[in-house]
C-alpha cells in the first residue's frame, strides 16, 4: 500500500526508507553528502575536535625551534630543566607526585588547579608534563609522517598497478608481496638498531617507506573495478589522456577508500612507534616519545603510577580519536551506509509523501 502511494508520486522510487535518504540528499554534491554524513557521526566529530584541540595544546606547550627561530611555549618547564624533586603534598615516602587536582573545594578537594608539576616529576626531577608533551609531539609527528608517506606511495603504486594491469601490475604487486614478507618491526629493528640515533624524523620516514603495502592493495582493487566502468570509457572516447583519466575520473571515486585506510594506517602507526620505542628500536634517549616513557617507567606502576598513566592515556586518546574519525569517514563515504531511522524520520517522510499525493 505504502509503496504504491510513493510510486504514484514523483517522489523517490524505492520504498519508504530510501525515500527518507533520497530526500535528504536531493540537490547536493557528493562532497556535501559526505560532509553531512560525517558531521552527523557523533563519535567522529567529537574525536575530530579532541584531536585538533590536543594538537594545539601539545604543540604550543613547549618551545619549538626551527633553525635559529625560536617560538616560546606556554609551559614554564622544558624537558631539560632539572628542578628539585618536591615532596610537599605527596604521600609518605614519595617524591615528585603530580600536583594536578580536579576535585573542587566544595567536594572536599583542593580545588581545580594545575600546580607546579601537574603530571609529577620523573626520578631525576624533570617535569613530567613537559616530557609527556614532547613525547606526544614526537608520536603525533611520526603518525602524520607515516600517514603522508605511506598514503602517497600506497596510492601511487596501487593506482598505477590497478590502472595498467598486465606486467606492470604483476611487478608492482610482487614488490608489494616482497615488502609484506619483511615485517615492518623487523626492518624497524634492524635499521633502528644501527641508525637509531638519526632521530625521530628519520624513524618516521623509513617506517612510512615500509607501511604502504596494505593501502596499495586496496587502491589497486578499487582501480581494477573503477577502470571498467562506463564513465572511464566515456572519458577515453572523448580523448582524455591516461593521466587525466587517473587523476580526474578514477581517483576522486577512489578517494573514500584511500582516506579511510590512511586514517587506519595512522592509528596503527602511533602504536607501531610506541611498540618499537618500547623494544628499544624506535625513538631512543635523550629524545622522548610516549612509548619510551611507558617503557622506562613500567616497573614504577605500583609505587609511582603517574609515570605510567599519563603517557598511556595520551596514546590511547590519540589512537582512539583517529580510529573514530576513520570510522566516521568510512560511514560517510560508503554509499550503502544507512543511518538508524528514527521515528521522527519516518514521520517527516510520511508527511512528505502525503503532501506529494495531495499535489
Amino acid at each position, binding site marked *: 500500500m505504502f509503496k504504491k502511494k510513493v510510486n504514484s508520486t514523483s517522489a523517490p522510487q524505492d520504498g519508504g526508507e530510501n525515500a527518507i535518504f533520497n530526500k535528504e540528499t536531493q540537490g547536493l554534491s557528493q562532497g556535501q553528502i559526505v560532509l553531512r554524513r560525517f558531521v552527523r557521526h557523533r563519535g567522529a566529530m567529537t574525536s575530530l575536535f579532541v584531536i585538533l584541540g590536543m594538537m594545539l595544546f601539545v604543540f604550543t606547550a613547549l618551545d619549538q625551534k626551527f633553525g635559529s627561530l625560536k617560538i616560546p611555549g606556554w609551559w614554564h618547564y622544558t624537558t631539560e630543566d632539572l628542578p628539585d624533586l618536591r615532596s610537599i603534598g605527596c604521600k609518605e615516602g614519595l617524591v615528585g607526585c603530580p600536583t594536578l587536582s580536579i576535585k573542587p573545594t566544595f567536594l572536599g578537594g583542593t580545588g581545580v588547579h594545575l600546580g607546579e608539576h601537574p603530571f609529577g616529576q620523573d626520578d631525576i626531577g624533570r617535569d613530567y608534563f613537559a616530557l609527556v608533551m614532547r613525547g606526544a609531539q614526537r608520536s603525533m609527528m611520526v603518525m602524520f609522517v607515516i600517514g603522508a608517506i605511506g598514503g602517497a606511495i600506497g596510492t601511487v603504486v596501487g593506482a598505477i598497478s590497478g590502472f595498467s594491469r598486465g606486467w606492470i601490475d604483476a611487478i608492482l604487486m610482487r614488490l608489494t608481496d616482497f615488502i609484506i*614478507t619483511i615485517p615492518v618491526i623487523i626492518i624497524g629493528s634492524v635499521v633502528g638498531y*644501527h641508525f637509531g640515533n638519526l632521530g625521530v624524523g628519520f624513524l618516521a620516514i623509513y617506517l612510512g617507506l615500509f607501511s604502504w603495502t596494505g593501502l596499495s592493495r586496496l587502491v589497486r582493487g578499487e582501480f581494477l573495478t573503477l577502470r571498467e566502468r562506463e564513465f572511464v570509457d566515456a572519458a577515453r572516447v572523448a580523448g582524455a589522456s591516461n593521466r587525466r583519466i587517473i587523476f580526474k575520473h578514477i581517483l576522486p571515486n577512489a578517494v573514500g577508500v584511500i582516506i579511510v585506510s590512511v586514517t587506519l594506517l595512522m592509528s596503527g602507526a602511533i602504536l607501531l612507534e610506541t611498540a618499537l620505542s618500547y623494544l*628499544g628500536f624506535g625513538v631512543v634517549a635523550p629524545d622522548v616519545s610516549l612509548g619510551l616513557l611507558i617503557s622506562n617507567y*613500567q616497573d614504577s606502576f605500583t609505587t609511582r603510577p603517574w609515570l605510567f598513566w599519563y603517557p598511556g592515556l595520551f596514546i590511547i586518546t590519540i589512537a582512539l580519536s583517529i*580510529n573514530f574519525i576513520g570510522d566516521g569517514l568510512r560511514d560517510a563515504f560508503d554509499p550503502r551506509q544507512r543511518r538508524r531511522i528514527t521515528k521522527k524520520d519516518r514521520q517527516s517522510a510520511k508527511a512528505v509523501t502525503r503532501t506529494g499525493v495531495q499535489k
Partner: protein
Amino acid sequence: MLAYILRRFGILAVILFGSSFILFNLAALSGDPLEGLRTSTDPSAHRQMMVLINTLQLDVPPPLRYFLWLKGILAGFTGHIDFGMTRDSQLVSSTIATAIPTTVRLVFFATITAIVLGITIGIVTALRQYSRFDYAMTFIAFLMFSLPIFWVAVLLKEFLAIQFNNFLANPQIPITWIIGMSIASGIVWAAILSGDRRRVWQIFGGVTLLTAALLTYLSITSWFAKPGFGPAVSFILAIGIAYGITQLSVGLSNRDALRSAQTMAVISLILYFPNQYLFDHYASPLLIAIQLLVTFAIAAAVGTYFAKIDRTPTIRTAMLTGFFIGFITLIDRFMHTWNPYMSTDAVNFRPVPTTGQANPLLEPGNFWFSTLDILVHMFLPTIALTLISFAGYIRYSRGTLLDVLNQDYIRTARAKGLNERTVIMRHAFRNTMIPLTTIMVVDFAGIIGGAIITERVFGWIGMGTLFNRAVTSFDLNLLMAVFFITATLSLLANLVADLLYSALDPRIRTGKG
C-alpha cells in the same frame, strides 16, 4: 588448478629468495658481532674471536655468506635443513625447536579465544545493529584497537594478578563490588537480549538479582579459595549446554536432536564419579584423548539411536554437546586441583603469576598440578593478547554479517517462511564465515612468529624473544631462521587462503591470476 598452484609456488620461492637476500645483507651491515670481543681485555678474547669467525664464517663477505646460508636451507629438500649456529655455538634449529612450542602455546589459545569471542560478539552486534549494545561494543572494539599491549599488560599484572592474589587470601567479595557487578551484568544482558521497555526491565531485574545471589553465595562459601562445580552444578550446566547447542545447531523443534543432547547430559551425570576415579588414578594426556574419543563414540551411538530420519544433524548435535560437557568436566577437575595447588610451597597462596611460563619450583610428576601451572601462567598473556586482537574480529564479522543480511537470498529465505534461527545460522552465518576463514588462516600462520612484545612483558622465551635477542646481539643465523620460518608460513597461508576462498565460494575462480 595444479598449474596455478605451481606458479604460485614459483613466485613464492622468488619472493622468499629476494627478501631473505636483502634482509641478510641489511642485518649483516647493521652491526658487528665481534664488537664486544674487540674491546675486551680478556686474554682469551682473541681465541674466542677466532672461534666465532670460524663457526659463523664471518671471514666471508655478507653477499657471499648469504649463499652459504642458502645452501644450508636448500639442503632441507634432502631432509637435513641447516640453519647454522647461534653465537653461543648452539644449533639454531634446536634453539628454535624449543621456542616454537612456547610461542604456539602462548599465541594459539589467545587466537582461538579472540576468534570465538570476536565472532560471537560481532554477530550479536550485527543482529542488534544500532542498539546500545552495538554502540558499546563498537566503542570497546576501538578502545582495544588503540591500546598498546605493554600498557595493558602492566594493568593486568596489577589488577588481575597482584590484587586477585590479595583477594584470594580472604575471598570475601565486598558488598559494593557485589552490587556493582550485579548491576553491570544486568545492564549487559538487558542490552544484548533487548526488546520492549517492560521486557528490558524484567531482564535487567532478573539478571541483577540472580548475579547478586550467586556472588553472595560464592563469597559466603569462600568458593574462590576452593572452587568446583560438583555433580549437581555440572549436571545443570550440562542440561544448559544441551539446550543451547541444540538451539544453535538444529533448533529446539528438532525433538530427536534435543532428546539425544539431553541423553548426553544424563550420561555425563552417571559417569561423573567413574570419571573422577579415572582422573585421580590414571591422569595423563592419553587418558583425556581416550575420554574424548569415547565421548564421541557415545554421542554417535546416542545420535543414531534417537535419529528417525535425518541422522547427521542429530549426531552432530550429540557430539558437540558431548564435547562441551566434557570440557566442563575437565574444568571442574582443574577447579578441584586449585586449592591443593595453591597450598604447595612453590605457589604459597599466590597462584596468578605475573611473569614466566612455568613455576620452576613446582615438583614435577603430578599431571594436574603441572598442567594447572601451565594454564595459570598462560592466564595473563592470553588475556592481554585476546583483548587487543579480538576487536578486529568484532568489526570484521559485524561488517560481513551486515553485508550478508542485505543480500537477496536472505530476503528469499525469510520470504519462504524459514524461522529466524535457520536464516541466521544456516544462510547468513555460513556465508559470513567464508571471508572470515581466509583471515583466520593468515592469522594462524602469524602464530609462529610469536608476539615479540607480549613475550617480553611476561618473560616468556619464544620466537619473539629469540628474534629480539638475534637483533640485539647481531646473531645473523638466528635472525634469518626466525625470519625464514615466519615469512614462509605467511606466504603459504596467503596461498592457502586464496585456495580456500575459491573452494568455499564457488563464484570465485582462482587460476586466471
